[in-house]
């Protein structure tokens, strides 16, 4: 399958929502620094899979293997949370300035104010957001919002970045900008999982996995 | 989100601790006196209580409610001493062991007030029972406290004595204190049985003159009873006994006799 080192493996993962099975995966190996498109129609379980990998959702059954150790899900979920960042299809931006939004996650890590400031500045430059730094994030356009969300995630340097339909409901120009940011992110040595129902090759992925009715289709 | 339930319990514990800490000054040494609105509203207690509490350094908390509730507080052990006016109910408290002994303190008077036109023609009668009969037969309106207070108990007793079961459109049970009941009687132009003190205090705001006073059956005795520490061990019995001794002293009697509302003496000490 891949020569890349293994990062996380999940096995026998099942998730029910209101008594309906929405996800049923025998095995999925997440390799370090690969770009994967999770493809499937609406309601096929893409978001659920990404949220489980983000540690935002707990499956009803399943085990996870990290660093070669099989862990109970409670421990694994910490590992997921520490290493993964999940981006919603419609990103939620906090009711504060763009730079405060981008700095949000960084504030939970030990950084001096000056280091934090310069990291935020360079991240905004990377995404072409510098001119919007003081604006309230709520007032931005859809494309700008998605870029703020991407920058806010990237600055944390997560080992696994989970993007849920990142370019849905976006105009052509914003899509182009967003694609190039995502490709840039994917080449940075971290794993990127992108859920989409659009054509997978838009993202030039290393691998495509297909979900149908919650099951992986090989 | 399982954590959140744990946080919730944690915060509940913090909340309770805060409350207990803030509330823990449930001060001891306080004397709790349950009494009727008539003694409080007439201003008598405001004169009596400071004289007692200042000279002995015993803070007195006055809880003014209807006689029925005051006696209930005593039975439940929520107060140390009661000063009320419903002799039979007071004796019940003593006989059931919740009160130690009943001491006579003072008396005032029940009067009947009513509309100036006096449609039931009771003016000048010297007996409350006779007046009640005339009111019931005239069809004039009558306002009853209806709150199991001392005044209400007295009113029921008079109806019993003249063998009338008051009901119908003319009989209005309002379930309120004396002051509010008088105001309602005034608005409705109805007759009402009232203690003279509350009537005097409100006299200038009402057009509801007294028609029957000095009646042979109008005397209203106030008794004082300490709550029995054998039933409720936390009762501040020393302070309660000091207060009972003091209220029967010459000093207190002078205050009671000297207390005037609208120039009239309200309470008479029992020798």
């Amino acid at each position, binding site marked *: 399958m891949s020569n890349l080192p293994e990062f996380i493996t999940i096995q026998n993962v099942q998730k029910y929502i209101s008594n309906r099975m929405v996800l049923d995966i025998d095995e999925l190996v997440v390799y370090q620094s690969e770009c994967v498109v999770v493809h499937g129609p609406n309601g096929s379980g893409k978001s659920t899979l990404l949220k489980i990998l*983000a540690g935002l959702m707990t499956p009803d059954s399943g085990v996870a293997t990290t660093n070669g150790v099989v862990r109970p899900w409670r421990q694994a979920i910490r590992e997921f949370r*520490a290493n993964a960042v999940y981006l*919603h299809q419609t990103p939620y931006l906090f009711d504060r300035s763009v730079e405060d939004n981008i700095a*949000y996650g960084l504030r*939970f890590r030990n950084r001096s104010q000056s280091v934090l400031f310069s990291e935020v500045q360079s991240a905004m430059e990377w995404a072409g957001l510098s001119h919007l730094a003081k604006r309230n994030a709520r007032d931005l356009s859809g494309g700008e919002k998605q870029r703020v969300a991407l920058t806010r995630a990237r600055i944390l340097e997560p080992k696994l970045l989970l993007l849920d339909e990142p370019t849905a409901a976006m105009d052509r120009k914003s899509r182009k900008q967003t694609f190039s940011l995502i490709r840039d992110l994917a080449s940075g040595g971290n794993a990127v999982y992108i859920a989409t129902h659009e054509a997978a090759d838009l993202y030039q992925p290393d691998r495509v996995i297909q979900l149908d009715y919650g099951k992986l289709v090989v | *989100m399982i954590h959140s339930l744990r946080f919730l319990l944690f915060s509940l514990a913090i909340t309770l601790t805060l409350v207990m800490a803030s*509330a823990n000054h449930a001060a001891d040494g306080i004397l709790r006196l349950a009494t009727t609105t008539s003694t409080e509203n007439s201003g008598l207690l405001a004169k009596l209580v400071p004289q007692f509490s200042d000279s002995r350094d015993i803070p007195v908390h006055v*809880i003014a409610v209807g006689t029925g509730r005051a006696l209930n507080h005593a*039975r439940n052990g929520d107060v140390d001493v009661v000063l009320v006016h419903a002799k039979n109910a007071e004796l019940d408290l003593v006989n059931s062991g919740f009160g130690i002994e009943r001491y006579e303190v003072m008396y005032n008077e029940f009067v009947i007030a009513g509309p100036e036109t006096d449609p039931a023609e009771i003016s000048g009668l010297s007996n409350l029972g006779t007046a009640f009969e005339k009111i019931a037969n005239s069809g004039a309106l009558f306002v009853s406290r209806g709150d199991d207070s001392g005044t209400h108990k007295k009113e029921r007793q008079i109806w019993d004595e003249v063998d009338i079961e008051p009901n119908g459109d003319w009989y209005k049970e309002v379930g309120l204190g004396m002051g509010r009941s008088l105001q309602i009687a005034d608005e409705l132009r109805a007759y009402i049985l009232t203690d003279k003190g509350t009537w005097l205090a*409100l006299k200038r705001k009402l057009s509801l003159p007294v028609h029957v006073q000095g009646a042979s059956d109008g005397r209203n005795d106030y008794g004082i009873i300490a709550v029995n520490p054998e039933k409720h061990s936390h009762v501040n019995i020393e302070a309660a006994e000091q207060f009972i001794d003091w209220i029967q002293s010459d000093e207190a009697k002078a205050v009671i006799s000297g207390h005037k509302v609208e120039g009239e003496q309200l309470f008479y000490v029992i020798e």
Partner: protein
Amino acid sequence: MDGLIGASAEALRLLFTGDREIWEIVAISFSVSFRAILYIVPLAILSAFALAYGNFPGRRVLITIVNALVALPAVVVGLLLYMLLSSSGPFGGWRLLFTQGAMIIGQMILAFPLLVAMIHVSLQGVDLSAWQTARTLGASIFRAMFTIMREVRFGLIAAIVAGFGRVVSEVGCSIMVGGNILHHTRNIPTAIALETSKGEFEQGIALGAVLITLALALNFAVATVRGRDMARH
């Protein structure tokens, strides 16, 4: 209506000449209600979060119960609390009856459902994605709560103001468990009830004026802060 005008004029005189008894009653009212709200708000916020984002059986039933309890009459709370705190009741040993402590507990119970219901509504105004975003960006549960509280700050303030308004004006519970004791548990509403029964309408109106002024001041303050924020956008 000579009576009303005369009483109002006298009420103003009482207030502005700094009638000590009136201002003491006002102070007791504020101190009791302020502490009640202060103590219960953290629990109310946590409960609202649990109801909004929690995933446990009976959640919907609990929301319905909380909403129903908003309408709980103060006297009912007073009566139940009286029975619990009475010396003959299960918690009589605490000796809390007829103290400010008892009033505070009563007002906490009264404020709780209103606070939870209002905060819960504000939280529902924020998408679940807000919570998930804070969490996935590394916020602990507590930090995430503070983030969301900041997002719904106006709803939160409105809930607290409404809760304070509910308890500072309630009479049924305070009179029942506080006993309306002068200098100790006589607050604005119980004093108004007493003064009215004595026919002392001036005092009643004066105290009512303090309550209304307070309510206006609080609501203007909230509206101003909110308006300033709206203007920023």
